[in-house]
């Protein structure tokens, strides 16, 4: 096997191992029903994490994701109360996400400010904007929400793929194509792998940076749309801290935080591992919710240690 598939293989192995372990300990765990639920419940986080994968692959970071999810959700709910069709407001909000991300990318490159600070400012601004829209939870009453909830694809053995999971899988495939079959995608890997070399090799840094964060903005806005439809409401505090879940999903998925190494497909499994841990602990019943965070934390830590040694062993970075 090619060495660059190792992190992805490790992620898939951990996912399968956790799933099988659950199946051994708990009745009915090892089923398409549980799998379908994990996919549906975590679809919005995985969607946002897919966008974050590009950002992290380029060596950047995006902290504005959680606030974007909250802002998109609460605005959709508000527009719903004004009589907008959810699809219409979704289109407008997705465009907003792209624009917001593009602005962040432009500021990062043009002013030469660290992505951490620029997107931290984005986090505050969007969260503040949430409270400007509404201070309370707002329900979405449009009949489309019901239609959205009813669409599903049956899986063998009684499970089903919910509409949110379907959307997630579709945008995942699109992201894989972008990452591996466009010049933009290769440029993202090049910038993350060695920025100085990428410049010398003629990669258009500014255009690519703007596009990376615009793509990140699009995916996190889409995550917000799916979250709002899935919960049929908007809440100004929704998505708080989700940027960190998304980053965790990306890292668990085998992408290096230093950039240049990783795969979009890994993020799907990274996100599902997080969902699986939560489900396992809920199945156990005797453990309280705190253990979800603790187990995720331990696993994340182990993963980074393993990645570090993997990277060291095949020495893909010149200066380790």
């Amino acid at each position, binding site marked *: 096997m090619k060495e660059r598939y190792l992190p992805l293989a490790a992620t898939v192995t951990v996912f399968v191992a956790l799933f099988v372990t659950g199946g051994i300990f708990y009745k009915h765990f090892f089923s398409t029903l549980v799998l379908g639920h994990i996919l549906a419940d975590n679809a919005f986080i995985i969607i946002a994490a897919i966008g974050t994968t590009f950002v992290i692959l380029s060596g950047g970071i995006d902290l504005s994701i959680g606030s974007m999810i909250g802002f998109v959700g609460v605005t959709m709910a508000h527009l719903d109360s004004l009589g907008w069709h959810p699809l219409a407001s979704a289109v407008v909000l997705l465009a907003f996400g792209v624009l917001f991300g593009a602005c962040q990318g432009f500021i990062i490159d043009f002013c030469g400010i660290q992505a951490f600070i620029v997107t931290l400012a984005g986090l505050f601004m969007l969260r503040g904007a949430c409270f400007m829209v509404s201070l309370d939870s707002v329900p979405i009453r449009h009949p489309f929400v019901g239609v959205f909830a009813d669409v599903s694809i049956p899986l063998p053995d009684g499970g089903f793929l919910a509409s949110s999971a379907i959307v997630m899988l579709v945008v995942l495939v699109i992201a894989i194509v972008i990452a591996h079959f466009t010049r933009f995608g*290769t440029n993202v890997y090049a910038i*993350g*792998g*060695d920025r100085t070399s990428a410049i010398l*090799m003629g990669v258009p840094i500014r255009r690519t940076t703007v596009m990376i964060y615009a793509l990140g903005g699009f995916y996190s806005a889409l995550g917000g749309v799916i979250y709002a439809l899935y919960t049929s409401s908007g809440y100004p505090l929704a998505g708080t801290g989700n940027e960190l879940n998304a980053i965790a999903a990306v890292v668990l998925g085998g992408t290096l935080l230093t950039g240049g190494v990783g795969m979009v497909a890994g993020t799907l499994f990274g996100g599902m591992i997080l969902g699986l841990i939560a489900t396992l602990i809920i199945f156990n019943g005797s453990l309280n919710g705190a253990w979800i965070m603790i187990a995720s934390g331990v696993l994340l830590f182990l993963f980074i240690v393993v990645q570090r040694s993997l990277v060291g062993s095949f*020495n893909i970075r*010149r200066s380790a």
Partner: protein
Amino acid sequence: MGETGVTDSSTLRIEMRGVSKTFPGVRALEKVDLQLKAGEVHALLGENGAGKSTLIKIMTGALPRDEGEIRLDGHPVEINTTADAQALGISTVYQEVNLVPTLTVTKNLTLERQPRRFGLISWGRARALAKQRLKRLNLEIDTERLLGSYPVAIQQLVAIARALEDDTRVLVLDEPTASLDANETELLFKIMRDLKSLGIAIVFITHFIDQVYQVADRISVLRNGRMVGTAPAAELPRLELISMMIGRELAAVEARLATSKSEAGGEPVLAAVGLGRRRTMTPFDIALRAGEVVGLAGLLGSGRTETAKLLFGAIRPDSGQLKVDGKAVKRFSPGHSLRYGILFCPEDRKAEGLVGELTVRENIMLGLQAKRGWMRRVWKDEQKRLTQEMIEALAIATPDAEKPVGQLSGGNQQKVVLARSLVAKPKVLLLDEPTRGIDVGAHAEVVALIRRLCAEGLALLVASSELDELVAVSDRVAVLRDRRKVEEMSGADITRENIIHTIAGG
């Protein structure tokens, strides 16, 4: 030696005429001419700071020139950006492999040029393209592996494969062999000979003299921003080449100072016994006595700076012993050395020595403050007095002590570096290239200053690529070759010729 070889303009691939370039405080290039013929390997030599990289950067559009013209195949061309140079068929491979190690070989070779179908990359065709590019270098490797998984030599070849276009006319290789072993170097040379037969003019920059004679057809030597001369490799003996690189100026200074050499005796202030570090410097012995100047001679990369840094503790030795006033040093660090009264003036004053934005006074005080510790601050009046003393003692040309150091000339900046060291009243001063990049006048002053310091009882180590400077100031000279101390000479034995012979290994 004169301009040899044909200069019939029809055979010239690229010609640079009267190219000059000035950086703030330094004249980097002074009316330099360089002629490259089609189908030759042309070695460009010179010590650090001679202007090689500036000249190459001007040729490849990375730096604008102040004056002069460039002709390609007989026609004047304007090269203002790297893209201009590439469009004209001038390609560069830098010393550092400028590719992305975390991408596959194919992706590195085709980045931003991937063949596409319906907007999506066709990796099949991209692979074929990559293989075809490598084939020109007779390189058969798995193009789907990550570039970083290959040895540096292969990475270097891939970089050349990427730089080579179908219409490449000039290929610049900047220190391509710096990190290659003998076999890898041989492979690279074979490829260079192949490319030469295609009519490409190759500029080969290196500091390995042996390699120059293995592969180069002609040699040009730069020194202090001037073209010393160009000659066919076969007609230029090694000794002559080295003396062209090291220079024979400053004879006047030598004459003036030759009489003032001191006779030092007594116990060494600083003594190294078998001090060394694996892969950095072979263990060596050296002793510095009060009132004595020890010179360190050797070509670039011979271990001059490393020796000074080992003595200072900036590089941690893994063998041997260092004694200060007869007592063995137990812990090696710049901090400890400073407490013992050992000071080091680095070669690159911008990166390691001075803070350009701070004033003359603030820079000089940094040295004192570092020694006293930050808790005991120096009062402003005291600072002014000490700074004024130093400005007068070293004749630093500055309107006042509050001028930012970055605005002074190169020579005066170097004096501020010295002042900063001296204000702490050291016992031992290690100077690395004290006259780097300063003009001849300031040069003489710094040399005179070194002699005076020594007469006042300081022990001095001077590492320099300027042989005449070493001959002028040194009581003893340690000669380094390939990171090994090969000889130590003293008294009447210290002559330019002796040192050159030792460096050349003759």
